[in-house]
């Protein structure tokens, strides 16, 4: 297998954007291409992740983006894996470069949904669940994670205030990220007083619906060395699956696909969770970050709450989680999120993260899943 690197990364701001889905996808792609210092003609394939292109009247995004980049002859793959689309797409790009099919490829994730309104997004997002049992019985996505939260709070004697601390921490980080959607300092009290969306989760426990696009250039090491000194290596890539419906899981407070993906990625990288300097994890709701950090092996089962109380996951903590602000504050344009996490790791490990830089970081991990973790991908990166 070829060694695989990321040599360029770009992102639009996340939030309510005016430009079209193709416009923002192109903006992020061009940003990544220029950041890598390559020409579009050097790209041999495109991996485009998106879920609700239909909301902005453009599906089959791949060929449109390739054409707009002046390379219509280059093959592309348009990928949907719910909120995990970005990392799953990255994995396919990684696998094809590792296998030697291509020297350099583009992975772009994009979403444009805020113009549709809360009812449309709540309804269409529910189609990502196992619909016969979940969305089709009235479950919204906040509702599914709220069900995980209720089970977690009961099992591990945690409180709604503990959940709120995750949101406060991620908002603190997002304040330092110029591209974050919700750049606003909040308190535990603000979270507790925000409107209940799906008990026990309140509005400030939930990530926002966001528009946005992120892109990275993935290549083999020979190509990387030829173009730049400013690159990072992919040292681990893992994937996993879970029963699609929550009811199919023996333990509702853990996500099997995260564990499987993490084990595979750690094994490939030859490291343990202790070696990771920081992680971007899938905190679509506050409860998710607690579950994720346990499933990824940073904390024992049920101990993430204590870690958050002690500030271990803050930017200056023992294991900073979501220095970008996470889905909670940076935003969650679902097709772009998994790629956006990799953009953050690239920026962190190449000295471009500004005020939110994790000190002395060499190894960063990304964790991104679809729906309630039915599909998941974990990647581990190392600076050169």
């Amino acid at each position: 297998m070829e060694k695989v690197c990321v040599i360029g990364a770009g992102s639009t701001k996340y939030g309510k954007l005016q430009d079209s889905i193709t416009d923002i996808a192109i903006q992020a792609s061009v940003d990544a291409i220029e950041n890598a210092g390559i020409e579009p003609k050097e790209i041999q394939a495109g991996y485009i992740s998106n879920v609700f292109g239909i909301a902005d009247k453009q599906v089959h995004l791949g060929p449109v983006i390739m054409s707009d980049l002046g390379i219509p002859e280059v093959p592309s793959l348009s990928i949907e894996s719910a909120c995990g689309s970005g990392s799953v797409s990255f994995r396919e790009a990684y696998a094809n470069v590792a296998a030697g099919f291509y020297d350099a490829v583009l992975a772009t994730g994009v979403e444009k949904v805020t113009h549709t309104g809360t009812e449309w997004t709540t309804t269409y997002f529910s189609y990502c669940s196992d619909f016969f049992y979940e969305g089709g019985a009235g479950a919204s996505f906040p509702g599914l994670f709220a069900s995980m939260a209720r089970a977690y709070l009961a099992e591990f004697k945690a409180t709604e205030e503990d959940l709120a601390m995750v949101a406060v921490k991620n908002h603190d980080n997002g304040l330092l990220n110029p591209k974050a959607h919700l750049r606003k300092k909040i308190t535990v009290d603000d979270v507790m007083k925000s409107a209940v969306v799906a008990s026990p989760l309140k509005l400030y426990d939930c990530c926002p619906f966001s528009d946005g696009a992120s892109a990275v250039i993935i290549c083999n090491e020979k190509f990387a060395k030829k173009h730049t000194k400013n690159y990072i290596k992919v040292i681990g890539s893992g994937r996993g699956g879970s029963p699609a419906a929550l009811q199919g899981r023996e333990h509702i407070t853990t996500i099997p696909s995260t564990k499987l993906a993490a084990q595979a990625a750690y094994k490939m990288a030859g490291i343990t969770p202790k070696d990771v300097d920081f992680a971007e994890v899938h905190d679509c709701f506050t409860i998710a970050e607690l579950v994720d950090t346990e499933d990824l092996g940073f904390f024992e089962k049920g101990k993430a709450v204590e870690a958050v109380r002690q500030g271990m996951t803050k930017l200056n903590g023992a294991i900073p989680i979501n220095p970008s602000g996470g889905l909670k504050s940076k935003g969650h344009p679902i097709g772009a999120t998994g790629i956006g996490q990799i953009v953050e790791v690239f920026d962190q490990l190449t000295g471009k993260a500004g005020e939110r830089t994790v000190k002395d970081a060499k190894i960063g991990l990304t964790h991104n899943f679809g729906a309630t973790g039915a599909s998941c991908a974990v990647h581990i990166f190392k600076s050169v």
Partner: protein
Amino acid sequence: MQAVQFIYSKVYNLLTKEEFINSAKSGKVLARKCTKCGHLHLVTTYFCQNCGNKGFENVFLDGKGSIATYTIITVPPAGYEKCVPYAWVVMKLDGVDLRISGFMANIQSPSDLPLGTRVKITGYDERGILIEKM
């Protein structure tokens, strides 16, 4: 999918989603029991998740159990606007290692539904599988 279900159910003499919905209306859960290892599945599974076997037999379970977890929805997806607030619940069925989720009307606050509350399946309509307190 209809065709696949038809062929599969013919060959293996299995009842499908339509019968699952009918059985829910009479308070039962139509499940599939692996003929090789005995593992139980809901009706939407075609290969045993435990041993990979393809053969199942139809089993009708009593739709009674207790609340494993739930949420009370106040911001609903389309079609549920008039039901708010309502609960979406995961219930553990009595006597078997199987959970099933569904819709519960008239739940206002968490004090209405402590974890472990005894519940039963009472029907199926446009709101999905219907569950009520026993």
